[in-house]
């Protein structure tokens, strides 16, 4: 479904939509968790009254997400305050807290924060004392998270019913790439209330790592839209692209960054540094196919492409022998 990416890139493309086109656009946008971002993007666009009503609801809904996400961040801040450690907000909550363009209408689910690895235990204890509880009671899953993942097993607050993911780095420990988490923490920027967000370049690179070095690209269109908004807002600051290049090298994410720049330029016409984006790779088209694999009923299409990316995501996440062991354990539990 190209219409969604087109509408995000250039709102005027919606002028040609008929009633079915609008209904399909909304179904696809909801499936990609982009209805709120779409609503803000098309705010000034003329459209049928029925479409305008649906998008007005989406904007109101996004405002409520933003408000509750910021409240959840505040709850975490209070719970962790006495530990005196840097607490870095990640992804949607960070964009909202910093008032960035990427936050406009963005859906925000769980609260993602990052703390220094050596402070994980203390953070966990403090959060549990403040009312968060484990979601996964399964001992294998729990041990797996603790030994191999970049975050604690998810915690949920017993009164507010909201999840928190406490990260100590940005990619699983078993992944082939190891971004420099200490540098990300050290260079993070403090906000008024004491919470932190990543430095601009790290914000982009965390998004890039999340997109291509982890996961199977589900929600990729939305995550790439984050990149577009971040790059447009941050890219105009003097020296940004040079710092981004250096930072990508530090984290080992040069290839991933280049791919992200090419894709966001292709789909959203993002202005990027051409030298950094490099020449189109053999697989760029596959990524585009995967990102647009959604029809006007909100259904996933291109099952084979999807499966290929699913396999790829596990391949990236762990070495082959470990992957085999993991899948075997999971399979035995499922049967």
């Amino acid at each position, binding site marked *: 479904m190209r219409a969604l990416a087109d509408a995000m890139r250039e709102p005027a493309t919606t002028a040609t939509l008929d009633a079915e086109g609008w*209904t399909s656009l*909304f*179904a696809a946008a909801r499936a990609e968790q982009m209805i709120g971002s779409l609503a803000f993007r098309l705010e000034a666009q003329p459209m*049928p009254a*029925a479409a305008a009503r649906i998008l007005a609801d989406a904007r109101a809904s996004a405002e409520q997400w933003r408000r509750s996400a910021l409240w959840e961040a505040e709850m975490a801040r209070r719970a962790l305050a006495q530990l005196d450690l840097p607490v870095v907000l990640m992804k949607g909550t960070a964009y909202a807290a910093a008032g960035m363009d990427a936050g406009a209408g963005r859906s925000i689910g769980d609260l993602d924060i990052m703390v220094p690895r050596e402070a994980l235990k203390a953070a966990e204890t403090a959060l549990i004392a403040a009312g968060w509880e484990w979601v996964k009671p399964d001992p294998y899953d729990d041990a797996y998270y603790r030994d191999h993942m970049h975050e604690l097993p998810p915690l949920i607050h017993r009164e507010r019913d909201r999840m928190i993911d406490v990260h100590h780095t940005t990619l699983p420990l078993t992944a082939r790439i190891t971004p420099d988490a200490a540098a990300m923490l050290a260079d993070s920027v403090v906000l008024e209330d004491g919470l932190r967000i990543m430095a601009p370049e790290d914000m982009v690179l965390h998004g890039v790592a999340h997109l291509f070095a982890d996961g199977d690209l589900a929600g990729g269109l939305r995550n790439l839209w984050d990149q577009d908004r971040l790059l447009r807002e941050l890219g105009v600051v003097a020296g940004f692209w040079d710092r981004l290049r250096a930072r990508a090298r530090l984290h080992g994410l040069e290839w991933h960054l280049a791919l992200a720049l090419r894709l966001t330029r292709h789909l959203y016409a993002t202005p990027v540094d051409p030298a950094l984006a490099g020449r189109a790779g053999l697989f760029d088209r596959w990524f585009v196919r995967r990102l647009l694999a959604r029809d006007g009923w909100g259904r996933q299409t291109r099952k084979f492409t999807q499966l290929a990316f699913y396999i790829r995501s596990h391949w990236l996440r762990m070495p082959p022998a470990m992957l085999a062991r993991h899948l075997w354990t999971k399979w035995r539990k499922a049967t």
Partner: protein
Amino acid sequence: MRYRFDVRIGPVGFRVGSAWRQPIAALRDLYAGYPEPDGGIADFTVRLEPERPWRRYLRPSVAIHGDFTLPDAAPLPLAQGLLAAEMGMNLQMALGQRRYLLLHASVVERDGWALLMTGHSGAGKSTLAALLGERGWRFMGDEFALLDPGTGLLHAFPRLVSLKNAAIDAMTAEIAADRFGPLLMGTPKGAIRHLRPNAAALSAMDAPARPALILFPRYGFAAAARPVGASEAFVRLTQASTNYVAMGEPAFDALSVLVRDVPGRAIDYPDTEGAVALVERLWTEALA
């Protein structure tokens, strides 16, 4: 999708797609005379589709998907495809509606004023609303009451009435056979039969009404009525809402105004005839 049906119910437009013909045929039949979505643009999409490709033909089972989906919702057999479609539309409302505060309640209207009835499943709010709808009241809905936070008005959402178990016989005795859907046996909620709202409910579908009385009915007890204070009504209505938390402040304000301005009564009733008499008496008192 191969088969589809578009419909507007009150202020909400739906697009229902299906891999099978049968559920769409049943919808077309029972929703005959309902309008199209406003401007042809549906608020919500529902998909009835097989969980795995071969389940379209082999022991066909209907998974309920759409803009909003519950990950662990059990699929239904194809014979209950109509129920799946209805559940699909309910699900979109419950999870996705943000324009109106949704109250799990039935609503009827008379002289421009609305009576809101809410209670647990089996309390009889659905049967009571359907019955009143045949006895001089306008039926506005038996599943969701749509409260507009901007105006305090209730909007009609006159979906098919979903009659369950004993209520089916009670209503078939009262209403012409051509307004009923097929009898669905062995659903997760027992026997279900859908009833099409009458012509008066359809023609006045776009007229909202101001709430005048909130009832909390309970079936199976000796007839009794007691006042329900604003704070109790508030708490019970938040529990009866699927989107109260998601809507945030506007929902709090709308509900605060509702329970401040509109009297609440808890009623017990032994049978439907007794209930109708009790409702009429309380209504007269409330409007006096």
